[in-house]
């Protein structure tokens, strides 16, 4: 009986001393109501009958909500970020918050974690209205947020990163390294993971850093863990490990609020899904009632078609790009690869499979040996300039650090790789530059009033369009996309996909699409290659392969 366990813990919770065991659920709030420790007073009956399809959900719904927002409105100059939103989280449930960028989900997180104040409505913690709710109050109520950047200290050790919160909350003056190490070890043991406590966090993988962040958040008496886009930088296997940890956290009596773009993951992990659009809650219900199409429709307000890429080319024609016996150091071995005109070829594999190195070699950024031909002509790719001159374009994985000049205008970003097209003699032709930039903005449907806006002010999806648009100006023959829609929301993603498919079909561009997102590969590619330990281990026909099959193959790799 799920709710009984909760009520027991709550009933036993002492007042709030340092000796308290780590996972107590109570910290100075109302004593349990009744013997079972929950109250159904504040839950509308209609909701009970409509939503409760599974027994465990029923238990959650009957308990008193941990947090409740009643008709909360938050205004920013010129817009309503949240518009009369009702939202509640019950103890021990996993809730997913879905919505496109700007839909209000980040605003909601910030209100719940005490960073933003709201203009109208009520915020209730354990059924009691609270006012002047700041970050410290949120932490004291057991609410912890794991931000996308994890807020860790890369130069400090794992143990210290873990222990800092606790030491600070106890207002310590002095630090005992042994005590610190013990706190760190406890925190990791609680999640049942092993990470070197003396390693500096900067040396850990992203996945391990995330686990450190989670372990740190659970150091205090956490009752609600909020995770903002937790799977963005993880590979499939790491996502599985994260989910196992999240379930363990739940088993310890902690509620988890997930914010995610990725529908497959939402459906896998959550028990309840809430969808936001334009600051309003548009859908809410048990996960069992949702599928990808329904979430997409709720997020975007319309259906997004799932047309696939059909390639009607000729296998025997001279390939656009032909690679034979390519080696890149130790990371890529003996790769044979053909890309035909109009083909979109997917490339996936675990992190470290050599897929990024392969892409970098084809873009002249990694020393390599082997035979590379473009339209049958041998190529030497010893620098990026060689690759660009040959007509190869590369859109990197991390557009923030590798692809965009955030502090420069869209126009300048777009023209960066094709400055030669906007010059008159040694000088830039401003008029021509602006015209080219405007063409690309309309061609890529970049949502911006003008091309002078800074690239850093655009949304993720629009930034990605700027990067792709820039390469279109160079008239590429081969386009290599590394994680083309990482961190891009659904609507924008579909638009980018459509644009890439149109380009391939219309201009004979050959595309190599590297991605962890299996549905993305299936939808856009005519062939999919899987890499492992530097070699291509599978060549699949996208038309006849199922998503689960690829997931299965990726998970089977070691």
């Amino acid at each position: 009986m799920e709710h009984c366990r909760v009520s027991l813990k709550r009933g036993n919770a002492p007042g709030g001393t340092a000796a308290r065991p780590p996972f107590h659920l109570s910290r100075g709030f109302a004593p349990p109501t009744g013997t079972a420790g929950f109250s159904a007073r504040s839950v509308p009956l209609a909701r009970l009958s409509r939503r409760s399809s599974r027994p465990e959900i029923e238990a959650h719904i009957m308990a008193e909500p941990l947090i409740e927002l009643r008709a909360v409105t938050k205004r920013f100059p010129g817009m309503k970020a949240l518009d009369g939103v009702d939202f509640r989280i019950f103890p021990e449930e996993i809730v997913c918050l879905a919505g496109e960028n700007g839909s209000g989900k980040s605003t909601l997180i910030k209100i719940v974690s005490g960073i933003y104040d709201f203009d109208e409505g009520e915020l209730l913690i354990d059924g009691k209205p609270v006012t002047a709710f700041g970050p410290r109050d949120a932490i004291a109520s057991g609410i912890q947020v794991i931000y996308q950047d994890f807020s860790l200290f890369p130069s400090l050790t794992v143990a210290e990163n873990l222990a800092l919160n606790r030491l600070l909350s106890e207002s310590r003056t002095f630090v005992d390294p042994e005590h610190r190490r013990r706190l760190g070890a406890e925190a990791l043991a609680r999640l049942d993971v092993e990470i070197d406590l003396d390693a500096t966090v900067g040396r850990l993988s992203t996945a391990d850093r995330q686990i450190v962040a989670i372990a740190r958040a659970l150091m205090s008496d956490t009752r609600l863990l909020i995770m903002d886009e937790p799977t963005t930088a993880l590979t499939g296997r790491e996502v599985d490990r994260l989910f196992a940890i999240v379930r363990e956290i739940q088993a310890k009596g902690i509620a988890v609020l997930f914010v995610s773009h990725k529908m497959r993951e939402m459906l896998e992990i959550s028990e309840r899904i809430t969808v936001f659009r334009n600051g309003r809650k548009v859908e809410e219900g048990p996960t069992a009632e949702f599928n990808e199409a329904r979430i997409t429709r709720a997020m975007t307000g319309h259906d997004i078609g799932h047309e696939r890429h059909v390639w009607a080319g000729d296998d025997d024609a001279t390939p656009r790009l032909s690679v034979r016996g390519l080696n890149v150091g130790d990371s890529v071995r003996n790769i044979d690869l053909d890309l035909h005109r109009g083909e979109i070829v997917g490339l996936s594999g675990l992190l470290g499979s050599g897929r990024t190195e392969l892409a970098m070699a084809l873009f002249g950024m990694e020393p390599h040996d082997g035979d590379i031909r473009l339209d049958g002509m041998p190529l030497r790719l010893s620098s990026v300039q060689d690759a660009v001159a040959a007509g190869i374009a590369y859109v990197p994985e991390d557009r923030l650090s590798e692809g965009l000049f955030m502090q420069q205008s869209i126009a300048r970003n777009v023209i960066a790789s094709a400055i030669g097209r906007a010059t008159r003699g040694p000088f830039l032709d401003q008029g021509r530059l602006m015209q080219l930039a405007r063409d690309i903005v309309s061609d890529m449907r970049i949502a911006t009033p003008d091309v002078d806006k800074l690239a850093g002010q655009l949304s993720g999806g629009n930034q990605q369009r700027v990067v792709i648009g820039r390469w279109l100006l160079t008239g590429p023959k081969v386009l290599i996309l590394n994680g083309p829609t990482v961190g891009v929301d659904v609507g924008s993603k579909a638009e980018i996909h459509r644009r890439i498919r149109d380009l391939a079909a219309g201009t004979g561009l050959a595309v190599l699409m590297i991605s962890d997102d299996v549905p993305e590969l299936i939808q856009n590619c005519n062939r999919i290659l899987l890499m492992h330990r530097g070699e291509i281990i599978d060549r699949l026909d996208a038309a006849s392969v199922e998503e689960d099959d690829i997931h299965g193959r990726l998970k089977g790799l070691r």
Partner: protein
Amino acid sequence: MTALAKLLRRSETAVLAILIVVMIVIGVINPAFWQADNLFNLLRANVVIGIMALSVLTVMISGGIDVSFPAFAVAAMYLTVIAMNAWGYQGVVLPFIGATLIGLVCGLANAVFIHTFRMIPLIVTLGSASVVRGLLLGLVGTSIINIDRMPPSLIAFGSSTVDVGGSKLSLMIFIYLGIAVLMWLFLTRTMAGRGVFAYGDDAESAKRVGFNTRRTVYLVYGLAGALAGFAGLLHASMIWLANPRDFVGYELDVIAAVVLGGASIFGGRGSVFGTILGVFMLTLIKNSLIIMRVDNTWQGVVVGCVIVIATALTAWRDRKALV
């Protein structure tokens, strides 16, 4: 990973190894190097620059930089000596407290600009250094206070020694080491000290975790100023004169020593032990250049090279760590 491997990966180990090699080489070229008198002299030369290096170390760990400490040191030194002469005061403790407080006030002024106005530490400290030096020379005076007018109590204090095997070891070295131990305890064993590391590593995260970052900034720059003021007066009592144009070019030497000791100019990393080694290495190099009769002007070239090479090495190490 074994304890030995961890030890080998520490930057202090590398500095120590290089230091030992350099000392052996110098000893071979000039056997007089190993004489106690020479070594004690070398240690004595570590004291003032070492205390200043500890102040800069704290600032650098916090992700900032301080080029104002020579100006603060000279102001604290000169004002204190002038005040002592004006009042005919003969003592040691009070003047040092006074010099430290003058440095503290100057350092806190830096902190106000850096924290309240979110200004870049380099610009703030460049400016405050220029202002303080200018005010000192313009309002207080430009004449050097020579040994004949230096307070005898300071001279006596600065030249106190202890006899070790027939050679005289300056007691000032123990003051330096004492301060170093206190700084080590502060940086590694207090929450405020860990806050300096956290702030230098990621200021935004430090705030989110719950550090009082305002207090950290004031603490770091206040402490840096205080140490500079103290070191300034110590310098005067060790060389028996107070020159209001002293400490020119110390910024470079001290920052070089701290970087040499493995501190990161980007913040978050650095250690007291490494800094002590860095200071020793730098004074050793400069000392050897003098013994080898290398012209004074060329010393700047050497120190500049040391900064660039040491920084390049740490950058290279960091990049390797990321791959």
